[in-house]
C-alpha cells in the first residue's frame, strides 16, 4: 500500500514538474502568447460590438456571459493547437525520441504538457475579462466567488486531458493540422461558448455532453453568473477527464507501438 502511495506521489510530482517546465516554455513562445492573449481580445471586441448592435449590451450579466464565452474560445484554440499538436511538435523538435525512451512513463509526461497548455490557455480568459473591464466598463463579480477557482481548476483538468486525447489521436494522421483547423469553430458552437446550448438543435445535445469544454464553460459561467452552484458541471469535467485519460492512454500505447514499428518517432 505504501508502495502504491509512493508511486502515486512520484507520478503526481512528475506531472507537476513537467507542467511547470512546459509553462516556462510557453511563457517565452511568441506563437502561444499570440494565440492565448491577442486572439481572444479580437474575439471579445467582436462579441461586445455584436451584443451592442443587438441592443443587449445593457445587461451586465450578458456582457460577462459573452466575455467568458469568448475567453473560453481562446482557451479551446490553445488546447486544440497546443495539445493536439504536442506529439507532432516534439517529433519536429527532435525531443520525442528522448521523451519516449526516458524511464518515466510517457503518458504522464504528455499529460503534464497538455495540462500546461490548457492552463496557459486560461490567459485568454484573463485577457478577455481585462479587455472587457478596461474598454467596455464591464463589472467583475461572481455569484459564487469561492466556487470560481474550483470551476477553473476543473475546466483546466478537463481541457488538459482533452488536449492529450487530441494529441494522441492526431498523431495517427498525417494531416492532423487540417483536422485541428476543422475542429476549432464547431466546438465553439457545440459547447455553448458562442451561443447558449438551448438555442442549438436537440440532436446536438448528446454531442455537447461528451465534449468536456461544454462542462468547463458551464462550470465557469455557473460560478460567475449562475443561480445555482455548478457542482454538476464541475463533476462532469472530472468524470470526462478520467474517461478521456483512459482512452488517451490506450491510444498512446498503440501510437508508440506503431511508431516503433514504422520508425516514425523521429524525422531524422
Amino acid at each position, binding site marked *: 500500500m505504501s508502495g502504491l502511495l509512493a508511486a502515486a506521489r512520484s507520478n503526481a*510530482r*512528475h506531472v507537476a*514538474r*513537467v507542467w511547470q*517546465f512546459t509553462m*516556462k*516554455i510557453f511563457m*517565452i*513562445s511568441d506563437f502561444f502568447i499570440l494565440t492565448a492573449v491577442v486572439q481572444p481580445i479580437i474575439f471579445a471586441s467582436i462579441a461586445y460590438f455584436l451584443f451592442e448592435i443587438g441592443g443587449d449590451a445593457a445587461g451586465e450579466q450578458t456582457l460577462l456571459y459573452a466575455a467568458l464565452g469568448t475567453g473560453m474560445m481562446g482557451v479551446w484554440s490553445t488546447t486544440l493547437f497546443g495539445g493536439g499538436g504536442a506529439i507532432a511538435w516534439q517529433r519536429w*523538435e*527532435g*525531443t520525442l*525520441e*528522448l*521523451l*519516449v*525512451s*526516458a*524511464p*518515466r512513463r510517457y503518458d504522464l*509526461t504528455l499529460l503534464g504538457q497538455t495540462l500546461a497548455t490548457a492552463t496557459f490557455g486560461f490567459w485568454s480568459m484573463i485577457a478577455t475579462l481585462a479587455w472587457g473591464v478596461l474598454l467596455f466598463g464591464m463589472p467583475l463579480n461572481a455569484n459564487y466567488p469561492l466556487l470560481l477557482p474550483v470551476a477553473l481548476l476543473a475546466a483546466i483538468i478537463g481541457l488538459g486531458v482533452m488536449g492529450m486525447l487530441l494529441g494522441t489521436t492526431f498523431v495517427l494522421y498525417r494531416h492532423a493540422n487540417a483536422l485541428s483547423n476543422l475542429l476549432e469553430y464547431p466546438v465553439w458552437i457545440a459547447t455553448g461558448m458562442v451561443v447558449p446550448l438551448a438555442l442549438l438543435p436537440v440532436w446536438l445535445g448528446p454531442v455537447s455532453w461528451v465534449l468536456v469544454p461544454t462542462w468547463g464553460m458551464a462550470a465557469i459561467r455557473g460560478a460567475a453568473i449562475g443561480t445555482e452552484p455548478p457542482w454538476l458541471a464541475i463533476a462532469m469535467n472530472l468524470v470526462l477527464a478520467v474517461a478521456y485519460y483512459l482512452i488517451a492512454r490506450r491510444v498512446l500505447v498503440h501510437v508508440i507501438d506503431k511508431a*516503433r*514499428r*514504422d*520508425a516514425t*518517432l*523521429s524525422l*531524422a
Partner: protein
Amino acid sequence: MSTTRPGPATDGPAIEAENLVRTYRTHLGVMRRRSLDVEAVRGVSFEVRPGELFGLLGPNGAGKTTTIKMLITLLLPTSGTARVMGYDVVRDTAQVRRRIGYVFGGERGLYDRISGLDNLRFFAELYGVEPDAQGPRIAALLDLVGLTGREGEKVEGYSRGMRQRLHIARGLLHDPPILFLDEPSLGLDPVGARELRRTIADLVAAGKTVLLTTHYMFEADALCDRIAVINGGRIVASGTGSDLKAAVANRTIVEIETYGVTDEAVDRLRADPDVIAVNTEDQDQSQVLLVQSERGTEITQRLIQHLGDTRIGKIAAREPTLEDAYVHLIATTGDADGSAARAAAVAE
C-alpha cells in the same frame, strides 16, 4: 500468470545483438503507388562486454543508427533479438531504459530557448532522478562536460560543441551503466571533437560501457577497445584496431597529391599489376590518391609515369592506418549484391 524475465546480467555481456534485421517500408509514386522494402540492417550480431568501449564503424547509410535505435528500444527489430544487461529490448523496455543513456550528434533534441540548466533539470525529472539528488548530480555533470559557469545561458547561444556536451550530460543524468553515443562528434570542430573524445575516455575510465557509432576512423582507433565495421547492413569485420589493421599490414600506402587528375589516369594506376587498390580523396584544390601495394614493392616511379601530364604535388609512402583498413574493407565488402537488392519494390 507471471512470466519469468531474465534478470540483470552481472557477468554476461552488457549488450548482445543476435541476427538483428530491420526493414523499412517506404512509398514511391503518386498515381501508381508502390511500396519499397528497404533492408537497413541485415543480420547484425555482436556482443559488448561490461566496461568496454565498442565502436560501430561504417559509412553513411550502413545501418549504424538503425542498429542503435533497436538496442535503445526506439525501433522494433523485424527479426532477431537483442538484450541490454540481460533485458530484452522488445519486451523489457522499462528495464532497458532505466539502464541506458542515449546521445546523438547534431543540433536537435534540446530546448533551445531555455537555459542548459533548465534542460538538465527537466531531463533529470524524466529520467527519474530523485529530487534531492538532482542538484548535486547536475553540478557534477556540468563539471564533467566542462559547462560549469555557462549553464545559465540559453541553449540557442551554445556552440555545437557545447550542445553536444550538454547532450552527454543529459544522457548521464540517471547514471546509466551503458551509454549509446550515435555519431556524437558530428559537425564538431577539431577542438570540440578532441574535448569530446577526452570526455568519452573519462567515462570509460569511470566504468561505463559505451557503444559508439562513428564514421571517423581515427576516432574509433583512438577510443575503442574493439570495433565492428558495418557496411550495407552487415558486419563485415570486427576486432581490435590492430586486428583490423592486420588486413592491410603487408601493404604500403603511397599518398600522391595531384591537381586535376583525370579518371583515365586513375584507371591506369589501377591497371598496374602491383597496385592493389586506389582511393581518391577530394580536397579543396587538390586530389589525394591513396595507392595500396604489396610491402617492399617499389612502384613510385611507375605511378608517376601512369599519371602522365597530371600536375603532382607531394608524394609520400607510409605504413597503413586503420583508415586504410577501413577503406579496404568497405571497398572489398561493399554491398556486393548492390543497394537494389536491399530495396525490393512491391507494386500495390
